[in-house]
């Protein structure tokens, strides 16, 4: 049987040749992404802004506009209605009613009644009610958790490798998270607790490629002490390229399946990780590695002093 080789043997792509172009593009994309997120804001779910979310599955596809006008006619404040891929599964979002929990119950109860009366066979799948207090805490905790995870991993990389690698990992993570945030701001996909779980996963998994490449760079730095840094990075990237491609593909296959035919409720989670892995693959090549050049990593940077002397003596006069 002939085996599939997505990356032929002896592939030698001069990745570093475009590193400055890639840097400028990445920088523009990151800044644009952050600015866009700040300007337009994220579509935060009830988990983070409080309020109520009612999920309904209808027997037949419904006219969303008609449903919207029905809910609007109930004067429950600014309601939003979103369908879940098909017009059969719909989520109705309601703002926090003034007057606390008792009022919230009445509101959800009225929506339930209305839906069940006007649409025979409709099924109320779930009702979430989150108070302002809880949603603020969830938002704070999520931000802290993501920041802690990024920092923790950067510190680990620093301890296992060198500080330049730790900085590289942190910048790579910041880039990946910023881009994924931008995607959520752009598509208006709802950000709920599951999506935050996805962001934390990205922090762990998008760095996968970076760790593997860093490991190879470290190995090559020890092996080829006289090679200039750029060819050494190129060599390391090419040597690990086949692995990068195959692993990213298996992860993307699994997540793609989850995204396309998995449960709708976790679509946001699936697409966020899918995207994070895709972006992470790019950034492991064009952010993690060039950062090392800018931070002044040289072939002899990590040699012990005595080894350095030895290396100097070996130099032809």
């Amino acid at each position, binding site marked *: 049987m002939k085996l599939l080789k997505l990356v032929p043997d002896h592939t030698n792509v001069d990745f570093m040749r475009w590193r400055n172009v890639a840097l400028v593009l990445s920088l523009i994309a990151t800044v644009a992404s952050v600015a866009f997120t700040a300007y337009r804001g994220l579509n935060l779910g009830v988990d983070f802004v409080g309020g109520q979310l009612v999920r309904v599955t209808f027997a037949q596809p419904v006219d969303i506009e008609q449903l919207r006008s029905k809910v609007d006619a109930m004067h429950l404040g600014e309601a939003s209605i979103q369908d879940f891929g098909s017009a059969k599964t719909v989520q109705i979002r309601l703002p926090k009613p003034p007057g606390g929990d008792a009022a919230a119950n009445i509101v959800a109860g009225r929506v339930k009644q209305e839906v069940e009366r006007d649409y025979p066979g409709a099924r109320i799948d779930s009702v979430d009610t989150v*108070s302002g207090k809880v949603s603020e805490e969830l938002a704070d*905790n999520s931000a802290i958790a993501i920041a802690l995870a990024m920092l923790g991993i950067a510190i680990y990389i620093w301890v296992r490798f060198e500080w330049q690698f730790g900085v590289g990992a942190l910048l790579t993570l910041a880039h990946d998270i910023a881009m994924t945030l931008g995607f959520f701001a752009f598509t208006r996909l709802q950000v709920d*607790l*599951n999506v935050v*779980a996805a962001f934390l996963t990205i922090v762990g998994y998008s*760095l996968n490629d970076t760790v593997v490449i860093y490991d190879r760079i470290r190995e090559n730095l020890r092996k080829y002490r006289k090679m200039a840094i750029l060819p050494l990075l190129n060599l390391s990237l090419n040597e690990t390229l086949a*692995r990068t491609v195959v692993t990213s593909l298996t992860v993307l296959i*699994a997540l793609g399946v989850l995204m396309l035919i998995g449960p709708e409720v976790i679509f946001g989670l699936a697409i966020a990780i899918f995207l994070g892995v895709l972006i992470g693959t790019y950034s492991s090549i064009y952010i993690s590695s060039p950062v090392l050049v800018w931070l002044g990593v040289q072939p002899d940077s990590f040699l012990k002093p005595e080894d350095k002397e030895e290396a100097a003596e070996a130099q032809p006069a």
Partner: protein
Amino acid sequence: MLEFPRWKVWLIGIVIAIGVLLSIPSLIAGTPLANSWPKWLPQYRISLGLDLAGGSHLLLEADARDALKQRLQAMEDSVSTELRRDPRIDVGDISTAGGRLSFMVRDPTQVDAAVERMRNLTRPVALTGNRDWDVQVVDSTRLVLTPTPDGTARALKDAMSVARDVVRRRIDPGGTKEITVVTEGGNRILVEVPGVENPDQLKQLIGQTARLEFKLVDLGANPADVQQGRAPPGSQVLPMADGTGAMAVKRRVMVSGDQLTDAKQGFDQDGRPDIEITFNTAGARRFGRTTQENVGKPFAIILDDKILSAPNINEPILGGRAQITGNFTVQSAHDLAVSLASGKLPVKLNVIEERSIGPDLGRDSIHKGVIASAVSIALVIVFMLVTYGRFGVYANIALVVNAFLILGIMAMFNATLTLPGIAGFILTIGAAVDANVLINERIREEIRRGRRLIDAVETGYHEAFRAIFDANVTHVISAAIMAYFGSGPVRGFAVVLLIGVVTSVFTAVYFTRMLVALWIRRARPRALHI
């Protein structure tokens, strides 16, 4: 590499066999096969989270002000009882304003004795050396009892643990359901009840403090004053539960709900729902004595500071049994009976987060999750096979074993599978083969460099391990933080990722290495097709 001792082969084989055995009960749960699973084999099962099984999730927060108020009231009661003991100390002008309890001692010569008795009522707070109440004399005859911060904190903590038990008893009087009731973060209680789709009844049960008191009606009060909310000294004005005005009652509690042993819903002579209560011995004695002394007078039945009814005492009630009448339906009488029997809540609880999930959504999600898992496993297997041939087969066997091990370990620890947990499972499937990809690519590389077969395989496993280890540590860091900060469903996701990291290193590194070693020893291949 070739020296793979027999005991290691056995050990790995046994670990895998146990893992697979443990996972089977969860896989066949709910199918006819479940009945034919032998009883002597492991029965551990993965439990389903609320988002898959359907049910209600409530997060309750204690109203700290209410806890302090209740504590003050309880202190007032014990102070009155204490001072009434022989030799009796007459006091007046009792006040609970400003969160402090104060009263005036009528006879100035008894002030010291009163202070002494009050000191005995207070208790030291563990290890801090402080007492839970500060006793001071102001203006020579007025005693002021101020709760200390330590005492208050301790009281709140005690109240929370009592509240947790009360909530559990109310939701599940029989103690048979698989519900979760745990305290969180000092002043919260998390309640999860599978299968209950509509949390309204739960909230009915939890929403009531259920502090039951019997007090004599103050017949001497001026109706006009009562209308204004003013009561004679020693009495207080309380509203009627049905909203039809108010009534003056004596402050002194005749008997309280603390002295109940049982409460049941029943019917009165006219067939209206009521609650039949039974007192314990001390309560029965007290109730008997007070009713004996007050025949012909009305007494008020008070629930959470509202008067349910105020019947006349027709004859002494000596058996320790009484009926509570009021404006009840069968349901509300039943709920109140459950609440009374489970004891009063030492603090009012407010619902701050509420999630309910219908069972159908969970069933759909499991169905779709299972299909998605199967399809992704199949696709990854095909991909690995065409990419690495024989070594792909080994990676694939490891992948399938890994899937069983994850389920087996989850079952063993009775972990909860949530909807995001399914995503974690699929992600692990995609990511677990990474270790094999790293190893196999490295072997390819070493062969290109001209190493001999066995040498290449050995170097491949050895050199790839560093990167596998570091990459997995980064996964552990993010998953551990997720498990720490996340709530229910997200924690379920993190747990699957964490278990998956451990099992995938085992299957992808050690297990495949064994398969490769056994193959090389048996077949003695001359060249590798990888």
